[in-house]
């Protein structure tokens, strides 16, 4: 049955324009410890697990590693024991919108890009890559914030703000919460990070799946308190900050999310993640949403 899709900023853009060619892959028999090391070294969010003849068999994500840590699997266990498979994939000529649909409906953060040869993985595309492409378009757009600084072309009220896109809820835990409790919350709520607060409910740090992955590799006991591994400081932006500036901050700092505070810096009211912004499928000002015009 024919379907109608409203054109968006990403309409007409293909995977090849956003994908990266570096795919971190490891044989299924590689240990979890070595797999974590590779993720850290290449700043990747997932490992492609391969079988015989280098064929893709599955994927190990930070969520899978968190599950292994929770289950106290030894670091010497094989990636093949915890992988999910088969890896979901797309082709380089597929539309980015279709890929975002696939990522969203499957609850995953990346798709592997297949080449012409059977089983040949030639790249990977994730939310950050899509957002990076979107950001470049916004910067070169005559209605964008960057151009408007020079020409005063677009009015400030047209700008999209963090509060328009953020997730308006944050999970917070006391700093003494054991890591098992943190992992249970992340798993149940489907969040990527938990805010750690002190006794006065003031934000003290953050524990993300990456922090848990590091703790796993360092053999940290799963009953250790949250503040023993939390990351500091809590990186945040104001709810009224421009979306373009927040995206830029995430891309430049290589971070997955920014917590959002209200005028009181210590009052966290939401979180803006790369996936929030990418799923929004718009540029950083209302010009894209209203006119659907963009000038690359």
């Amino acid at each position: 049955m024919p379907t109608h899709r409203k054109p968006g900023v990403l309409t007409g853009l293909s995977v090849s324009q956003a994908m990266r060619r570096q795919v971190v892959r490891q044989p299924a028999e590689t240990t979890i410890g070595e797999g974590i090391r590779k993720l850290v070294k290449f700043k990747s969010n997932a490992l492609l697990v391969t079988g015989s003849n280098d064929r893709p068999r599955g994927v190990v994500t930070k969520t899978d590693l968190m599950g292994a840590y929770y289950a106290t699997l030894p670091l010497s266990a094989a990636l093949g024991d915890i992988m999910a498979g088969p890896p979901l994939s797309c082709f380089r000529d597929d539309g980015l919108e279709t890929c975002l649909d696939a990522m969203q409906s499957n609850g995953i953060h990346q798709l592997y890009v297949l080449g012409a040869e059977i089983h040949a993985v030639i790249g990977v595309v994730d939310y950050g890559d899509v957002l990076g492409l979107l950001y470049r378009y916004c910067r070169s757009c005559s209605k964008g914030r960057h151009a408007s600084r020079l020409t005063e072309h677009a009015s400030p009220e047209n700008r999209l703000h963090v509060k328009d896109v953020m997730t308006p809820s944050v999970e917070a835990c006391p700093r003494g919460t054991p890591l098992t409790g943190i992992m249970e919350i992340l798993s149940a709520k489907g969040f990527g990070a938990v805010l750690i607060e002190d006794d006065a409910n003031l934000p003290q740090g953050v524990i993300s799946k990456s922090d848990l992955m590091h703790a796993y590799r360092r053999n940290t006991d799963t009953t250790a308190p949250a503040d023993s591994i939390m990351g500091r400081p809590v990186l945040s932006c104001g709810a009224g900050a421009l979306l373009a500036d927040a995206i830029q901050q995430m891309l430049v700092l290589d971070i997955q999310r920014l917590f959002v505070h209200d005028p009181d810096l210590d009052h966290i009211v939401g979180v803006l993640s790369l996936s929030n912004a990418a799923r929004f499928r718009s540029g950083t000002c209302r010009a894209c949403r209203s006119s659907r015009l963009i000038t690359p």
Partner: protein
Amino acid sequence: MLAQDIMDTRFRTLQPRDTIAAAVRAFHEVSREQGKKIFGLMVTDAADHLVGMLSIYDILLFMQPKHVHIWGEMEDMDFEKLFNDLLKRVKDVPVEDIMTTDVVTISPTTHLMIISDIMIKKHIRRLPVIAAEQVLGIVYVSDVFHHLLHRFQ
């Protein structure tokens, strides 16, 4: 001509828990001591067993931001501040997180032509010489080449 004849036995190693900042200092000091630019150092554990190799490429790769291709379009950014922030973030990362662990090694009796073949085919510039799980020395591509030069003369 064998590896034991041309290997450099004056080598310094890094420990897995050394930080990147300490490793960079070690590269600088070893280069000064040996009078030549050193681009890779071996990493050994407490038992002096080789557990990895750290090259300047590993460090540069790790320091490169994931979305660095966008940086080139941000003419209005304060790159000096960003770069300083980046250095602060990575300086305490341990060597074991970014070293290369699948290291190709040779024995003291590996012939020069085999060494040369490994270096060319695998794009390797330095090969640790190992016997009985202990590091005896290291052969640099420049040593191989200079030795060949002497033989020609």
